[in-house]
């Protein structure tokens, strides 16, 4: 028999109380792991989304930078057009490795969903766009046969949504024009999965907006100074430049604000559960004063008693935080789904990234805080004088 054995048996004495305290600790660990897991997962998914754009800079017509960021990440109709010649001018810059011109247009489709919806078409340059996104692979078919062909390439999810395969026709409702599906892309895990690609010139012709663009994707050379390039771009009239880092920063600023609030709540939860630990252990010490006095009469030192009570706190905290960690890991998919429904913008891929170091660190932190909160009750228990303790409950 060891002191650990005695501590564990003591915890089993009031099972419901020990379980409730453990539950409080588990809750703190769960919240903390989920929160930090979300933080890591969101950032990494956002990075992956941005990296898979294939370009580091998006040049758009002047407008709201947040809408530009949304356009860059999620797609959507541009607010304003800019002349197509700007793309040629940008391509001449020494820092530029490649540019690709894009024109996005949406039309209302009354047959979409229950009360209709918008279909977005992204006109891309068939010569430059595929080179900028070499990771795109076709499940069936291939890119357009002509730069102005009435053809479409569907992202994986767009093909599922429209229920179209290679060779099928796709009706652009408002214009009553049909385009032929020539390719269906494999899943990329990016916004491209939900996109309907058409040749740039075809989109311009169908929607009657010749020689204009909504965006220009710019891939810079490795050695290029992105800030200097940005300054140059601002000299061009009526354009704004959205860099990858700006997009990240804009979204992360929004997310961080929410995160700070959630973190504060999590810290309050940790504080409450630790107060619970202190309360439980202190109550247990008060109830067992006589017993602790007997232990002292039997030869236990103050340090022995301190260690016994501290061990009980330790066991509670370790079991509670481990349980919380298991719950956090097993419910991460559910948490991902819930958070995704709440967030206005969620990147593709997993939002929760719970790693082993994160679990170990959180379990360690929660246990550490628990141990600190157990110091006072343990110290109180260690101070018990054998006779006072025995007498206190005889009276």
């Amino acid at each position: 028999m060891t002191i650990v054995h005695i501590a564990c048996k003591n915890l089993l004495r009031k099972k419901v109380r020990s379980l409730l305290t453990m539950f409080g600790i588990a809750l703190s660990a769960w919240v903390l792991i989920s929160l930090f897991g979300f933080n890591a997962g969101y950032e990494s998914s956002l990075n992956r989304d941005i990296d898979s754009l294939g370009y580091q800079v998006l040049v758009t017509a002047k407008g709201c930078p947040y809408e530009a960021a949304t356009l860059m990440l999620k797609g959507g109709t541009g607010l304003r057009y800019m002349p197509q010649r700007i793309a040629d001018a940008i391509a001449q810059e020494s820092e530029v490795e490649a540019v690709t011109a894009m024109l996005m247009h949406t039309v209302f489709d009354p047959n979409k969903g229950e009360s209709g919806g918008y279909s977005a078409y992204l006109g891309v340059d068939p010569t430059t766009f595929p080179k900028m996104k070499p990771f795109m692979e076709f499940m069936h078919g291939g890119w357009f046969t002509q730069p102005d062909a009435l053809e479409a390439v569907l992202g994986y999810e767009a093909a599922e949504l429209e229920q179209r395969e290679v060779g099928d026709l796709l009706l652009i409702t408002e214009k009553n024009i049909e385009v032929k599906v020539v390719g269906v892309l494999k899943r990329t895990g990016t916004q491209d999965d939900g996109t309907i690609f058409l040749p740039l010139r075809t989109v311009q012709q169908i929607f009657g907006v010749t020689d204009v663009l909504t965006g220009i994707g710019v891939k810079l050379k490795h050695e290029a100074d992105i800030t200097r390039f940005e300054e140059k771009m601002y000299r061009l009239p009526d354009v704004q430049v959205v860099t990858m880092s700006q997009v990240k920063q804009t979204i992360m600023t929004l997310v961080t604000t929410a995160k700070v609030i959630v973190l504060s709540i999590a810290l309050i939860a940790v504080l409450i559960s630790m107060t619970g630990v202190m309360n439980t252990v202190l109550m247990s010490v008060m109830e067992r004063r006589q017993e602790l006095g007997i232990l002292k009469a039997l030869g236990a030192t103050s340090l022995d008693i301190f260690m016994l009570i501290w061990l009980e706190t330790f066991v509670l905290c370790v079991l509670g935080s481990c349980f919380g960690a298991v719950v956090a890991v097993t419910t991460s998919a559910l948490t991902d789904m819930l958070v995704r429904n709440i967030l206005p913008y969620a990147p593709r891929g997993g939002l929760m990234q719970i790693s082993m170091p994160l679990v170990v660190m959180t379990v360690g932190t929660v246990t550490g805080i628990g141990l600190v909160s157990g110091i006072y009750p343990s110290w109180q228990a260690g101070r018990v004088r054998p006779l006072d303790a025995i007498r206190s409950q005889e009276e």
Partner: protein
Amino acid sequence: MPQQHGQVLTAECVSKLYRRGSEQVAALNDVSLTVNRGEILACVGPSGSGKTTLLNILGCLENPTSGRVKVYEQIIVDEKKRLSEWALTKIRRQVFGYIFQKFYLIPTLTVSENVMLPFVFYRKHDAPADVDSILRFVGIEHRKYHLPVQLSGGEMQRVAIARALVNKPSVLLADEPTGSLDSTRTEEIGELFKQLCRTEGIAIVLVTHNLHFAQIADRIIELRDGKLSRPS
């Protein structure tokens, strides 16, 4: 510290004063006595006469207000000196075994675990064999895996005695050891005490109301209002 012969415990002019509001009450008043190796000393007297206080002072559980207490030749407390809590703990471990009227067994531990408790704090490794032999000695070996709640009063007191004996003390201090027991069990405990003195040479100081039980003692002292009315 334990020695083969002579005085084990000495109390010289021991007094203990308590404050009750503005009034000072003398629980013990100038008490002197000695306890020798292998003898049973019974302390009798009415309730509130100071018997338990004397036992606690002799057992280093409580400090006197004045006077001197010695364990063997070591001064535990006098006018000039008072041992530290750590030193007192060491003496309690080495010299004393305590038996209380209410047994004070730990309810979550089995009989053998309760008896083993002192070993946990001494960090001795030969505990199980010692525990088994002591449980056999007090006649409770068949109950070693039972919890205190499953035992009768007599059995619980035997467990308490086993626990007090497990570290081989030189002095056993028993406060009303038969207070919760019927006459048959009282006889049994009395026999056990006599056997301990004979075979192990343990000195026993027992506090009791039961004058019949006190007859097992080699000497009887009587306390009245904190004073020895029958000298030792």
